[in-house]
């Protein structure tokens, strides 16, 4: 029994039953398959994180975000600037207690290099209803190239607990059909 010492003293020399051996081999092969899937997706899949990140001073990051927002601001919404940066460029969003700043207006099927960093605690960038989730750190600037492939209104919910106002922390990203329409 499992609660008493093994009945065969040399238990490590007893043969393994076929059904167990087959299952072990299947499990090992399945492990290799799942491991390979992640590598395969880096080559062929379209949803991968870039691994690009920089050390950044929160104050300097805030300056950069503000400068960029002033440059491309097209209107305001609830006191937050709505920014329409040119496609293909770097766009900068900051997280702080308890706000995502600024709001973006992007064009469908265009790529943007999105920078994310926090000015204070950790935050969770949770883009809804796409359900795309990234962790946002202070002192780290993460760069991800995003290509919105749907037009409409999208919401950034904070999904890392960040204190008492956590559940009020919402941001927006608008995606328009854009001048180029359906073209890539």
């Amino acid at each position, binding site marked *: 029994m499992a609660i008493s010492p093994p009945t065969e003293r040399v238990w490590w020399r007893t043969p393994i039953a076929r059904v167990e051996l087959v299952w072990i081999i299947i499990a090992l092969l399945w492990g290799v398959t799942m491991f390979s899937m992640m590598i395969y997706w880096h080559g062929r899949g*379209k949803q991968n994180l870039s691994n690009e990140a920089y050390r950044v001073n929160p104050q300097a990051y805030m300056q950069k975000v503000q400068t960029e927002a002033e440059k491309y601001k097209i209107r305001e919404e609830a006191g937050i600037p709505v920014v329409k940066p040119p496609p293909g460029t770097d766009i900068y969003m900051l997280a702080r207690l308890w706000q995502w700043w600024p709001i973006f207006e992007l064009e469908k099927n265009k790529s943007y290099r999105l920078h994310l960093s926090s000015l204070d605690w950790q935050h969770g960038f949770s883009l809804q209803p796409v359900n795309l989730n990234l962790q946002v750190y202070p002192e780290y600037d993460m760069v991800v190239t995003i290509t919105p492939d749907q037009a409409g209104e999208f919401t950034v919910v904070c*999904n890392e607990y960040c204190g008492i106002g956590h*559940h009020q922390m919402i941001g927006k990203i608008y995606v328009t059909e854009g001048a180029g329409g359906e073209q890539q």
Partner: protein
Amino acid sequence: MTTPTRFRTCPTTGLKVDLSAERLIKANAVAAIVFLAVGGLFGLLVALTRWPAVHLLPADLFYLVLTAHGLDVLLVWIIFFEMAVLYFASAVLLNSRLAAPRWAWAGFGLMLVGAVITNVAVLQGGSTVMFTSYVPMQAAPHFYLGIILFAVGALIGCFVFFGTLVIARDERTYHGSIPLVTFGALTAAIIAVFTIASGAIILIPTLLWSVGYISTIDPLMYKTVWWAMGHSSQQINVAAHVSLWYMIAAMVLGAKPLSEKVSRMAFLMYILFLQLASAHHLLVEPGISSEWKIFNTSYAIYLAVVGSMIHGMTVPGSIEAAQRRNGFTQGMFEWLRKAPWGNPAFAGMFLSLILFGFLGGISGVVLGTEQINIIMHNTLYVPGHFHATVVAGTTLAFMAATYLLLPLIFKRKVIWPKLASWQPYLFAIGVAGISLFMMGAGTLGVSRRHWDITFADSILQFDYPAAAFLMMGLNGLSAVLASVGGVVFILIAVGTVFVGERVGDDEKLEIATPEAAAATAGPTVSEYGSEKELKIPGTTAMVAVFFTVFVLYYFVNWKYLSEIWPLS
């Protein structure tokens, strides 16, 4: 030796029980169940607040209670119970005296004081930082201090366990190798040492930071090392509850491992690879390379998952083989149909096995896939997953083991046997609901640790889909059901300890089923673990179903991932 050791011989199992070990097992189990009651109540309050139609607590209390819930059940309840398991699996199963009982009591005292200090810190309101306490969010110094004391106490317990193994070997209290259950407990204890070391490496500097001796702690470094504690501590649970599965199958059905070699190899894979799982929490973080993420999140090409998949066959397989030996040989599933489903120890164990495998195991692997994590990270999918592993898996297995601990160690007969036979089902159905509905809500994007998914106080507005609200309501209902199961368990456990009928000193209890008792009491215990005789068609069919579900669900999630915005 400072204290003379006294033993009693258990009339039921024939084991020699060191009375100092017995007292320690009792103390740790009682402390565990007290914190389960407290932490479980906090959990119910969390679920009732997240049920949109009820929305019980105000925001500040909700976050406070959520912090306390995580600490009390994920850490305190489970580690206290694991200490009881360690002392049982060493001193009792090996017929040995316990090493250094005074040290073990010191460890127990430190754990208790630490748990109380951290609870006080949380309830005072200045440490609402969640169980994870990610820096730069700061808690009061005694929040960290309590956890450190608790961990030091647990570490002492681990070394008492190791010492007992050495004593048992030296004094030849058993022949051959240690039993499989003790081997599994050893696995848990080794992982615990790694866990506690990681905790010390990160929490001691964090304590110094909170009192102002250290100016900054890098948040990414904190999270990497913290999860080397946080996730590894869940691997202690896995090793411990898998050991209890084997133990209960052995005690109730007389089950013997199909192959000692295979089951021990599976435990060894846990020791070697489970600790890499810190990576599961770092898959969408900046500053960590994909190579690191892929290797670590897969536990080195899924070798630890292979370990669990092996137990997934060998545990039910050993039950099937034992039941067939016990005479249930009709068709593929007579052994399962005629299993002792009215015995809460067996029922709890088997439900734990099924729910841990199907809900917890599969969702964990999917969630821990580097890219798929993008569509799940920090959503309710995450607590959905770990309630399946830690509550349906570990907690239910510990409850099941308690039904054996009460008569054998506390020497009291379980009160209200009829209610007790229902308890595992109530709890299991409730917890399965919690897990499934949280995973469902997470798939719809609902955030974890979030007070108000209607965003009523927010400047900007957003509505989650209506289905998400339905999921949260069903989650609340399931939590109520699980709580009923939990309350029944605690009433039975506490009631049995205080007013249960005493087991006489020479009274032999019927722990095993009559068929198992007849089969194992025979002059020769029939051998079925050998290569030639092994027949487990029912288990093979169940494993085939499991594997099919696993493969389908895994690829369905790649499909979901492929539909979101392209990212590079």
